[in-house]
């Protein structure tokens, strides 16, 4: 390895990056945002779709629209989502 050219390369690259400096307001911006960042574990499970697993009796094959309507309404109401059918 050419030690001299290696040293020149190191100096050149350092001079290049040292021409720029971190922003003056970086600290204040960071602390402001950190103060407004919650680090506590947020319970995201409330956002998960968890349909209840109760069974819907199907007395005949003609009952499936009513069964589907009931299922959608029950689960959408559970999560505050408005179901719009038809």
């Amino acid at each position: 390895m050419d030690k001299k050219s290696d040293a020149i390369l190191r100096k050149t690259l350092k001079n290049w990056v040292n021409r720029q400096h971190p922003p003056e307001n970086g600290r204040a911006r960071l602390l402001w945002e950190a103060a407004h960042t919650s680090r506590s574990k947020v319970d995201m499970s409330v956002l998960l779709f968890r349909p209840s697993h109760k069974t819907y009796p199907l007395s005949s094959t003609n009952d499936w629209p009513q069964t589907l309507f009931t299922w959608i309404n029950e689960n959408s109401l559970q999560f505050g989502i408005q179901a719009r059918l038809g």
Partner: protein
Amino acid sequence: MEAVSDSELVISLQAGSLEALGVLYDRHRRLVFRTALAITGDADAAADLLHDVFLRLFRFAAHIDSHRPLEPWLYRMTTNLSYTWVKRRQRWLRPLEDVADWLASTRKDTPSYQAEMDDSWRQVQQAISSLPLSHRGVVVLYYVDDLSLQEISEILDIPVGTVKSRLHYGRQALKQSLGLLAGEILPDLQYEFT
């Protein structure tokens, strides 16, 4: 609080201390900024990455081992986020003219001198940007951050032999681009930074 060790500050950070975050920021911001700047070549991006790295440090403090040095974590996070930034940018094929804008926004002495200097710095920027991303990271950590081959190996999670190989090819490419092999580099670029 200035004399407090990084380890103690990380423990304070884990308890939610914003003061500890501020001290760590003051202590390590140059390290993060120069590394991000050298990899991305974009001062605005480096400023954003600096912010992002320390915000992540705050948010994920609980997962940091306070018994281990903090700097490798900072280097690793900075390098990874910088790589992501560069990859995203490459998708948009940002023209090199933007780099000229970045260089043109720096301090001016006389117009002719600065025009010449900007051309020279643009040459450095282009030489770095032309390196493959994996080589660029190794070159920056070695030449700009003065890290050893072993330290780079641990930070980038690659074998020392790979570090050596990437450094060799990165070095050769840079020297060729900058005219170092023929001794053509402008002496102005080599001044001693104080």
